[in-house]
């Protein structure tokens, strides 16, 4: 069975993500420390709230370097909501320095009629990707956030989907085995469960493959 480690750093609702991944056919382990995800097939970093406190918790638990190393090695990774934003260099929300895997920053949504952006919205895909296999083009997913990632120069091609709330923002990214979604698949009904099942399938396939495509990670 595919083992998915969900990083538990005190970032809110883990019941839903655990249940949704289990429903998608994975064996889920909640990882408090790096040694508890070393032998997993895939890593999921969920999270809501502000970047600063989240990074402080990740660092206190010694998780920052192991997560960067995991991604650099080309092992399957999914960041959800704040877990996507943390992949970039920093956040305008509180000035936090984040994981710095990808070039770019987390910025406040521009021209939004109301913030936070709460509710179901369309995810406009920019290209075909197995994460969205079997999901209708105009499917709605559940969002709850005020900030979103703005990939910088050097992150060309990382954008997988965009969403409109006033202005347009990045709602999904993917590069090799690295993926991130700004919405909450674990709270997005049947389509969300399908996306998570697709991720579990990708993790399983990666586990069976002998070679990995390493992901270029920004130097520290």
């Amino acid at each position, binding site marked *: 069975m595919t083992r998915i480690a969900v990083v538990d750093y*005190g970032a*809110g*609702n*883990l*019941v*839903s993500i655990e*249940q*949704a991944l289990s429903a998608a056919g994975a064996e889920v382990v909640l990882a408090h420390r790096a040694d508890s995800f070393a032998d997993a097939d895939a890593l999921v970093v969920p999270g*809501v*709230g*502000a970047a600063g*406190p989240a990074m402080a918790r990740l660092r206190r638990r010694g998780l920052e370097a192991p997560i960067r190393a995991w991604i650099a090695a080309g092992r399957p990774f999914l960041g959800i909501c704040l877990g996507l934003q943390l992949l970039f260099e920093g956040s305008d929300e509180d000035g936090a320095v984040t994981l710095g895997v990808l070039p770019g920053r987390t910025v406040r949504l521009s021209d939004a009629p*109301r*913030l*936070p*952006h*709460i*509710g*179901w*919205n*369309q995810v406009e895909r920019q290209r075909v990707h197995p994460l969205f296999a079997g*999901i*209708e083009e*105009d*499917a*709605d997913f*559940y969002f*709850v*956030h*005020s900030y979103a990632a703005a990939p910088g120069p050097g992150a060309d091609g990382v954008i997988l989907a965009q969403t*409109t*709330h006033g202005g347009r923002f990045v709602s999904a990214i993917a590069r090799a085995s690295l993926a991130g979604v700004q919405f*909450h698949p*674990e*709270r*997005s*009904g*049947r*389509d*969300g*469960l399908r996306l998570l099942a697709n991720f579990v399938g990708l993790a399983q396939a990666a586990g069976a493959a002998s070679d990995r495509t390493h992901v270029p990670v920004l130097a520290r």
Partner: protein
Amino acid sequence: MLRVRVIPCLDVANGRVVKGTRFVDLTDEGDPPTLAERYAVEGADEIVFLDIDAAPDGRGTLLEVVERTARRAFVPLTVGGGVRSVTEMHDVLRAGADKVSFNTAAVRDPGLVRRCARRFGSQAVVVAIDARRRAGPDDPTGGWEVVVKGGRDATGLDALAWAEGAVAAGAGELLVTSIDRDGTGAGYDTPLLRAITDRVHVPVIASGGASGPEDFVAAVRDGGASAVLAASIFHRHRHSIADVKAVMAAAGIPVRLAIGTAR
């Protein structure tokens, strides 16, 4: 485009869904996880779960029911009722809630809203405002006063000023209930909703008074609500969520019509 949400509300006492006219004549409406799952399948965009008994010794029961509900309904869950500290909010989120709603505790201590927003983010903090018209149930000229304990206690606070204060303290969303309309089926208090949605930039959930789909349309079109909440009209099968959304869509309001794939 962002969809307007239709939200069934489950009033929970002693681990069961109940409905009466605001805390009196309560009747049993079923098991929270069962109802929540039914609503999620029928197209609920979110579920609100209010612990109206909130007895100190009932917390364990509540957390257990929240967890069972979160495991069965893959739509967002907001839990309110009796949360009085950052630690208690943490417990409710750990049990599977996505957002926590504060009412009386926020009025007594706006610092609680600030502390919870700093710890968990504004998007997880909802402030519920129960408002009553000062000049009488049919007259909006005197403005609205904040009441607590299901309308039993007046606070003297102006509802519009408190709406701004709650947002300033860190609320990411307001759940606005008209105590004049709640349980009457007379429709949402759209002047109240409009007064609040004109003053704050966070989403506002309309509550209190729905009897039919046209009330939902009015809450959005006239009141400016981002989401519309109701309880008994869904529990009693008077209207399905799909019926309500079909009427809203026909009125030009963006709603999520499909639960799964085909639209």
